[in-house]
């Protein structure tokens, strides 16, 4: 790999030590707690209707408490001794092969565990209010718990196979929750769509694991990374691109982005937890975790940055045109994750920035979604922003928390999003050369888009005049819903500063992912050209939104669109492309395969079956029941034995 300065040299990821404390050696509890909740609620049936949701809320909270203990345990160790291998279950070991379940607790995984359990707990609490009237409440909480457990498996796995198990688990939970209101055809279709598109990515990840197993002879993180220097370029490129394909599916990156907007059919807490804060960031986790593979395959790394940059811009454009508040937020999620993927593709210099942005994004985006849910709650489940307006007085808490999340995401100075987005921008420019210039500029364009579409959303929802439907009487949501929003808003304001000042997060995270801690210079961020540029485009984006959506009245129905807007409203024709390029040829292929299956494969299988049955009857005829025949058979056997002993091989 091309090295321009020592800062870009990857350090060896820290070697895992054995778990020796009660907290860490029982890290399986983190997964077991929510999993038990899902099992109790699903198997217990109606008997658990009354207390089930409360139990399901308490368990992720308990897991969060355990994760906090684990964090303190890790902090009590030396910076290089914070990768702890936790053997959970040894299934069997035969010869040189052993199979079992092992977890890896290190700064990277514990960061995710904390994010998942903390945001997860808040969203469970929020759901107590949001889903209080839903008849399927118990099932909903069971699936939520299942999701948390699967997501924790994904991030705590110490090998790609177990990671894949978690990967499929979150896919399943996501499918169940998007289609939670299965009586709505749109929800059922959206769930199916998400599942199918994710299959494509999953196959990529699966094939990548198979290649690792055959070409590198290992599937555990440490063994794979140890085998990377001796592996061929082709193998590494293939593994890198296939891992990226997996990441694209789960994280809704181009070209597998089309499912995320439809996934908003799920209940809003699901959108906040799964399709904003946690699951969709799994792709970023995968790329950072598999860092050594990508670092050894520069072409794959470049593709990662290109995919990230393209998705970031595309997501921003889509978000700018959607009138559905959740879909607009979904476009924003695509865009923000694209930014993280771009950072992760920069190599070790961008890892910390990517994960830091992922964590702060988890807070403010979850807060924004919960705010959107609160607004929908008040507007009789209406999602069209053109029927909102002037809600700031009716819903002061929602407005305040949503507003803080908004300021964080557009990168208002000193709020959480600013710190982490600034880190990504400086990392991108820091790469140097044309690559750095292009990527850095792309991030700034992405930031401009963010400022525009988020301002548009806030102006259309909370400002301007009332454009409400008949019979809608907005009111503030109950405290079980607003409390989590307040907590997330506090995180949106302060978390970035807490993590970045003194390079706390960078120093904590860097050893486990082989990155050198990257110092964040506050003064530099305000004085460097790109820092100023970022602030300028943010102001520009807000101003443009102000001109278009606040100074002029907003139409109650979407006006006739120009070319660009139509393009954006149609989600850049992603669905049409999928249909024309994949679905229709796929249907033809299915028909052809059906014929092949009927005529050729079935024929062969049936023929084989008949063949086996006939030879079975033939051979069975030797079983005459006469001892003399048996003795003769034995004599024949003696001849075979003599022959095989006599012949020299």
């Amino acid at each position, binding site marked *: 790999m091309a090295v321009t300065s020592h800062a870009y040299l990857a350090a060896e990821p820290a070697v895992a030590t054995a778990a020796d404390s009660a907290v860490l050696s029982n890290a399986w509890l983190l997964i077991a707690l929510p999993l038990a909740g899902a099992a109790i609620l699903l198997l217990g049936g109606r008997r658990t209707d009354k207390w089930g949701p409360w139990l399901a809320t308490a368990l992720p909270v308990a897991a969060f408490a355990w994760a906090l203990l684990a964090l303190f345990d890790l902090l009590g160790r030396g910076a290089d001794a914070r990768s702890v291998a936790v053997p959970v279950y040894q*299934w069997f070991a035969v*010869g040189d092969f052993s199979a079992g379940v092992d977890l890896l607790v290190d700064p990277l995984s514990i960061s995710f565990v904390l994010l998942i359990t903390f945001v997860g707990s808040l969203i469970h609490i929020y759901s107590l209010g949001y889903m209080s009237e839903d008849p399927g409440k118990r099932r909903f909480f069971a699936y939520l718990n299942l999701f948390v457990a699967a997501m924790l498996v994904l991030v705590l796995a110490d090998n790609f196979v177990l990671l894949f198990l978690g990967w499929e688990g979150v896919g399943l939970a996501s499918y169940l929750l998007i289609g939670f209101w299965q009586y709505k055809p749109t929800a059922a279709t959206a769930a199916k769509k998400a599942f199918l598109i994710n299959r494509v990515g999953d196959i990529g990840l699966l094939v990548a694991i198979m290649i690792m197993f055959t070409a590198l002879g290992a599937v555990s993180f440490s063994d794979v990374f140890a085998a990377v220097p001796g592996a061929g370029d082709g193998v590494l490129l293939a593994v890198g691109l296939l891992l990226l394909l997996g990441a694209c599916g789960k994280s809704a990156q181009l070209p597998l982005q089309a499912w995320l907007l439809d996934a908003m059919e799920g209940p809003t807490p699901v959108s906040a937890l799964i399709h904003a804060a946690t699951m969709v960031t799994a792709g970023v986790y995968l790329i950072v975790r598999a860092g050594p593979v990508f670092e050894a395959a520069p072409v794959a790394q470049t593709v990662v940055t290109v995919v990230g940059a393209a998705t970031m811009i595309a997501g921003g454009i889509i978000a700018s045109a959607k009138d559905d508040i959740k879909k607009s937020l979904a476009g924003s999620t695509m865009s923000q994750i694209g930014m993280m993927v771009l950072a992760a593709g920069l190599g070790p210099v961008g890892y910390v920035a990517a994960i830091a942005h992922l964590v702060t994004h988890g807070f403010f985006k979850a807060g924004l979604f919960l705010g959107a849910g609160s607004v929908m709650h008040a507007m009789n489940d209406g999602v069209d922003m053109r029927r909102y307006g002037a809600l700031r007085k009716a819903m002061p808490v929602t407005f305040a928390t949503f507003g803080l999340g908004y300021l964080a995401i557009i990168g208002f100075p000193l709020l959480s999003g600013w710190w982490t987005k600034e880190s990504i921008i400086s990392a991108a420019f820091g790469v140097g050369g044309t690559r750095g210039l292009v990527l850095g500029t792309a991030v700034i364009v992405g930031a401009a888009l963010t400022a525009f579409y988020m301002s548009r959303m806030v102006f259309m929802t909370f400002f301007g005049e009332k454009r409400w439907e008949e019979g809608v009487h907005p009111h503030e949501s109950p405290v079980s819903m607003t409390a989590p929003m307040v907590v997330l808003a506090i995180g949106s304001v302060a978390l970035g500063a807490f993590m970045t000042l003194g390079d706390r997060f960078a120093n904590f995270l860097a050893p486990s992912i082989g990155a050198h801690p990257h110092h964040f210079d506050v003064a530099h961020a305000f004085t460097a050209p790109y820092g100023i540029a970022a602030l300028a485009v943010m102001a520009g984006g807000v101003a443009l939104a102000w001109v278009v959506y606040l100074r002029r009245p907003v139409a109650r129905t979407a006006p006739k669109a120009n070319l660009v807007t139509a393009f954006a409203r149609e989600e850049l024709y992603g669905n049409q492309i999928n249909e024309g390029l994949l679905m229709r040829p796929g249907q033809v292929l299915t028909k052809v395969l059906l014929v092949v299956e009927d005529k050729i494969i079935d024929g062969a299988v049936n023929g084989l079956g008949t063949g086996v049955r006939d030879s079975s009857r033939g051979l069975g005829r030797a079983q005459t029941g006469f001892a003399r025949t048996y003795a003769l058979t034995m004599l024949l056997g003696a001849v*075979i*034995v003599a022959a095989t002993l006599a012949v020299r091989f």
Partner: protein
Amino acid sequence: MIPHMDLPVVTEGPPEINWWLLAPLLTLFAAGVLGVLFEAFVPARRRRRLQIGLAALALLAAFVLLVLQIGTLPEGQAGVTVAAGVLAVDRTVIFFQGTITVLALISLLLIAENRDGRDAFAAQAATVPGSEEERAHILAGSQHTEVYPLVMFAVLGMLMFPASNDFLTMFIALEVMSLPLYLLCGLARRRRLFSQEAAVKYFLLGAFSSAFFLFGIALVYGYAGSVNFGTIRAAVEAGGAEIFQGEGGDGEPLLLMGIGLVAIGLLFKVGAVPFHNWKPDVYQGAPTPITALMASCTLVAAFGALLRVFFVPFGTSAASWEPMLWAVAVLTMVAAAVIAVTQRDIKRLLAYSSVVHAGFILTAVVANSTDGLAGAMFYLAAYGFTTLGAFAVVTLVRTKDGGQELGDLERWAGLGRRSPALAGALALFLLAFAGIPLTSGFIGKFAVFEAAVAAGATPLVVVGVLSSAVTAFFYVRIIVVMFFRDPEGDGPTVVRAGAATGGVITIGVAATLLLGLYPGPVLDHLLPSSETGPEPVAVMVDQASTDTDG
């Protein structure tokens, strides 16, 4: 090292005998003899309880003694030989013997199961089937309590078989094991003619195979000048006994014929194709508890002996017998799996299944390595528990009218709905037979195939995996019949499981799951491993040869 060919030394005193290491065998022998005396002197109505108690106590005592013996084996070497080198006591042997005693104890539960005063055995075997005399005995409630001493003697033979350290002892063990089994096979309470036919066939073919075995021993003696395993191994290494050295000519044909004939005797006992014909007929005809005993304990004993013979006396001439075992293993895995596809009777199906499993275990013998030995040991133990459970289920499914066991699988339709627990247990056993992960069968299969691949026998493993696929077909078909087909007119009745049979099924389920989910302790601590502990095969040889030399 060239073995001594001097005249036999006349010993001055009795040989030194380690009674402690012989204690498990002697316990069972004493129990058998005592059982015979009970038959003679204890009144008929009190015999049954006494015999069962004695047998159970003896097996339990033998097991405890075996466990205690492990501690007294010398550190750093696999084991020792006892009684002037005729028996070997090492960790491998103790594992086999321990497995056999546990499995025999569980089989005893099935044998002792007594429903309405009737067990699985004929009221009076000497009466003509269907005669007035027979009916009189049935009405009088006569019972053959001789079954228990016969079982004791059979188990004694099974314990000796894998422990034998010379061919003559092995032959005696073979006969001690087989003769009581021939008798027991003919004692079924129902379908007595069928049962007697099976017994006669088993006896005739068993005698036939014993002749091969004995002839093979003679030829090997001619080649090596000894029947002792250690001495034979040394002789094979040296190229034959002294008379074959120098100008004496080539003794190899003698050795090869000897190996072949001995192998036939052993392959008959494990039921490898084409020496398997007795298995379906005998398994079907014998009283099911005895079938269970044979399918589990006899198979373990026979494979224990086969492994010892091929690894110790013939261990240094592996190149000459490996092609032969390749051929037999392939034949066994393919032919038995194919024939099993069209079987309609559950006991015949399980018999063919046992033949296929023998083929899988043969791949571990071909591997000729410590891993292979360990794999075979695990496989045998796992299979023993599972097959006991399966046969226990078979004893419970009866016809509506006559109350005899219902073997016809087509009429098992709907069993899963009628008695879900029983059908579920059988389904688990069948999945274990098929080698589905998270059951003991998977680990066993993985262990033997892994060993075979490591030893370069990959084609054999490919055949094995394909054969597994075929076997999975008929195992799953039974599950489909039980759970997904509507019961037909005169479906089966399920006899309520007594404590004994229920216990056997429970133990079978527990062992199948435990060894499938958590095999670590057994794999790590009970089985030999090439990395830890002494080399099991090599040390057995050293011990054998030092004993004969010294």
